[in-house]
């Protein structure tokens, strides 16, 4: 018996410092501790099969992260969720275990909440708003193949922006997925206020398809 499953989880607090590479080891051990029989790749060095739809950058929190795995026993998905949650470290929590409804290629957008701590939130907010309203933002993007120019206009939407005494708060929707992927830090690092920011907290709050449905 084999069943492809998709595991939706939250990664918050201390757990945001677990790198993507460390996450795969962490999940393998979590399945082992939960005593769940999972499918292992065959070959020289068998490992637990896992595919992440959209790896999260180190230091980011995420509320709707997901990965695929393969169960090799008939266990109700709610029970899978319960058993995993009992043995997960603080900061990792499973919200849902389900069948794989969509293909990861359908992911086109992701929403992010950014909290930018700074000395003068009012002025930072003003400058940032001006920056994000420009008709064209061309940035250098480093990829495996080298550095290339990238036009960010059209690849992001500002959903909300505000500020309080300590911080600027920003909600952004960014192009995401196999073909185009814009990291919120890319936008921020190229903004005129980057040097003024003391600390950036980033949280991914939604992963969406082209017609803005949640990835399932």
């Amino acid at each position, binding site marked *: 018996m084999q069943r492809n499953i998709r595991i939706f989880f939250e990664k918050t607090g*201390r757990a945001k410092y*677990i*790198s993507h590479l460390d996450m795969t*080891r962490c999940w393998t051990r*979590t399945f*082992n501790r939960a*005593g769940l029989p999972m499918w*292992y790749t065959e070959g020289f060095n068998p490992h637990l099969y896992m595919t992440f739809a959209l790896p999260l950058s180190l230091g980011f929190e995420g509320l709707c992260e997901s990965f695929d795995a393969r169960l090799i026993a008939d266990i109700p998905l709610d029970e899978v969720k319960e058993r995993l949650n009992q*043995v997960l470290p*603080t900061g990792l929590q499973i919200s849902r275990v389900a069948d794989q409804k969509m293909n990861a290629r359908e992911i086109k957008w992701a929403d992010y909440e950014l909290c930018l701590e700074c000395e003068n939130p009012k002025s930072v907010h003003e400058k940032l708003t001006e920056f994000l309203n420009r008709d064209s933002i061309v940035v250098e993007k480093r990829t495996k193949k080298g550095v290339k120019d990238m036009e960010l206009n059209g690849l992001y939407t500002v959903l909300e922006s505000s500020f309080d005494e300590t911080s600027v708060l920003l909600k952004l929707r960014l192009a995401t997925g196999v073909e185009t992927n814009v990291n919120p830090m890319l936008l921020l690092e190229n903004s005129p206020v980057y040097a003024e920011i003391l600390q950036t907290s980033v949280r991914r709050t939604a992963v969406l398809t082209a017609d803005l449905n949640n990835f399932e």
Partner: protein
Amino acid sequence: MIPKKLERNLLKVQKPGRYIGGEPGSVHKDKTKVDERIAFCFPDMYEVGMSHLGMKILYSLYNSRENFWCERVFAPDVDMEDVMRSEGILLYGLESFDPIKDFDFIAFTLQYEMSYTGVLNMLDLAGLPVRASERKELSPIVIAGGPCACNPEPLTAFVDLFLIGEGEEVNLEITELHLKAKNEGWSKEQYLHEAAKIPGVYVPSLYDVTYHEDGTIKAVTPIYDDIPEKITKRIIVDMDKVFYPDKFVVPFVEPVHDRAMVEVLRGCIRGCRFCQAGFIYRPFREKRAETIDKCGKALCDSTGYNEISLTSLSTSDLSEIEPLLDKMLTWSQERKINLSLPSLRVDNFSEALLEKIAKVRKSGLTFAPEGGTQRIRDVINKNVSEEEIMNTCRTAFEGGYTNVKLYFMMGLPTETDDDIRGIAVLAQKIVDMFYAMPNRPKGKGVNVSISCACFVPKPFTPFQFEPQDTMEEFDRKQKLLRSSITTRKVTLSCHDASTSFVEEILAKGDRRLCDVVELAWKKGSRLDGWSEHLDIERWTGSMKELGLDAAFYANRRRAYDEIEPWEHLDYGVSKEFLIRENKLAHADTTTPNCKQKCSACAANKLLKGEKCVAAKYQDFLRENGKG
């Protein structure tokens, strides 16, 4: 919650996962409800410290007591140290993020000499004076244990109290005493004096050292009548019943050894004359297969590891090794758990054993003949013949392995150039044998990789009297070995001689070296176990500045009747035994292992009347119908 100052800086450093704790298996308690807080410090980085079994045992042991809370602390990497110093972040416990200077104990494990300056650096990062005499309060007490505590003299100025031997009992005893001291309002001096009466506790400030004019030691004397002249190490008599954790902290960031570990035995029967561990952990005591199996299974369940290692100095010497592997394989294979046996010996490495460990995953094989010729192997009492080495390699090749790694040493007592060339000759023979095998693994070349270390004579071994080779001599021998290798099938890596030189000075050093350790630290020495951080000049420069002669410590033959800096510590093995063994080494004569014949090393006195290994082995043979 991560403190704000720390949080703001974590993304500026490499692998921040090392500094945040929160791993599965880590223990969190309410600090208002505990009586004693212990910071267990490993004076090296997270990846190294999290591989260390002793820390896992003592962490669980302390935390098994409801009113004690033990946290882990590691040396920060250089980038993190810069951040901590510039931002004013004090060294903290990974579980609570509280500064360890407010704890009751700061406990260091001393695994290797090159971590000594790391101890000072961590005390400084904690915001404490490094010198014990400048820390006046009852808390924190700085304690240290581990193998290097067998000659703790170069650290005596910094550490309040050393624990000699195994810690499962004495660690709790000194903590209990500290709780009493707090409740009754004792001074630090009062506490240390009382603690010094507990067996296995060495409080260096309560012992005076005097010297002869030639710089050797005249006497080590206690300053009170009611503390022992000689401190005898503690051991656990019944290994089968000793505390062992059923949980480990499972790291996020990958440590050097990332697996479950179950300790199968303590001590070693072999008596290899160069090996400090082989003497200071005597007498040999083992666990029963049933206990080990149960323990290993519980650990795999609770940690989720896919690999478990059966840990000891020589795991194939476990009397019940084959039944143990049979038991473990019944559950490990089905769960894709790999069994690993480090420290296998070439002389009892059977085909059946190889088959059992190779069932899950194949990796390379590692052996340690240590010496290139039979003569030098006899000198060091590595009772392994060339035939056994060849047979083992053949078995490995027949089992599909094509990489073998062999460990050797140079600078061994009585060594000649023939012994050095012998290393290359032996490696060549292994290569030749591979190609002469009709059933060798097809389509693959062989690789014999040789790793050659520089010998560091250590306290409590028969070679403690021996001088170390000079750096020039090591250099010459390394060149000789390199030029003796004529095939690409053999790869050679040699250890850095300067590291071994510093190790030797510290290993056999006395109290006068405390100033050197402090000066080397002030010059920037900290993570010296990492070659990229070690600058030998800091050490040699400090020795010179302080007017101490490195050769006096490292390159001098010591007379049998000289009082060694560690002679007020009793590790069970007698000096008479070490002298006997030293003489046998110079006569190229071997000593049988403890199962074959007792060599009267005297460590059996620590067993308080229980039978030692030779007698027990006779019982074992009788019970199994072989006697």
